């Protein structure tokens, strides 16, 4: 999996490409918590290029959302493929994350 990070206004965007699974989730967790712990609470995860996710990937998103919750923010996730959105739904994550269809909607 590739992780590209960039600043867009107040937001930090994480663009994920490939597979978020047991072999790659710890890499993402490190980067995400690192950025959040520096005080960046506006986070968007762009999943346009993400093809696969398993429970270890879901756990990373949940941990980040919990961290942001203590700062009064929701984790924003955008551009999720339908079959991955279904996994979020099954996991009960649709109410925990702020899920948007596009990047633009997110940073408004």
């Amino acid at each position, binding site marked *: 999996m590739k992780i590209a990070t960039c600043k867009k206004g107040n937001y930090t965007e994480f663009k994920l490409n490939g597979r978020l*699974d047991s072999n790659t989730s710890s890499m993402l967790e490190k980067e995400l918590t690192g950025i959040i712990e520096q005080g960046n609470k506006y986070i968007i995860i762009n999943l346009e290029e993400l*093809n696969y996710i*398993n*429970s*270890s990937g879901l756990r990373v998103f949940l941990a980040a959302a*919990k961290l942001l*919750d203590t700062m009064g923010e929701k984790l924003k996730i955008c551009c999720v493929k339908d*079959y991955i959105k279904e996994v979020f739904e099954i996991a009960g994550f649709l109410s925990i994350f702020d899920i948007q269809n596009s990047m633009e909607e997110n940073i408004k």
Partner: protein
Amino acid sequence: MKKLTIENNSENLSKIAEFIEGFCKEYGLENKTVFELNLVLDELFTNIVNYAYLDSDVHTIEIFTEAINDEIIIKIIDDGKEFNPLHMEDVNINASIDDRNIGGLGIHLVKRLTDKLSYERLDNKNILTIIKKILANGDKNENCDL
């Protein structure tokens, strides 16, 4: 019936993905089914590799697949310690973010993405049988390169 025999090493996940893709291609199953079967086997295999063995020896895990009428039947057999995923407590997906537990999601996904799960312990082996109904060939889903 097709069979895959693999060792308990997380690097073998890609072999499972290849095996499932081959099986799905043969039966013309749609991408969404390929993704869901991969996810189910990923969660179960990863659980076995991480928790089933108390020693650090090499163990063999067997996976059998077949399609009968409109059902896919998958059997996973391991010689690890007794573990019945059906006895796992359900995840409360309606809990607030504060109360959501980080664990237990894998088995929750397995239960929700399959139509029937059954477990037996036989000759010191865990035998888990999964049944998933094949969706009628309707709308094609997005491509997923797994």
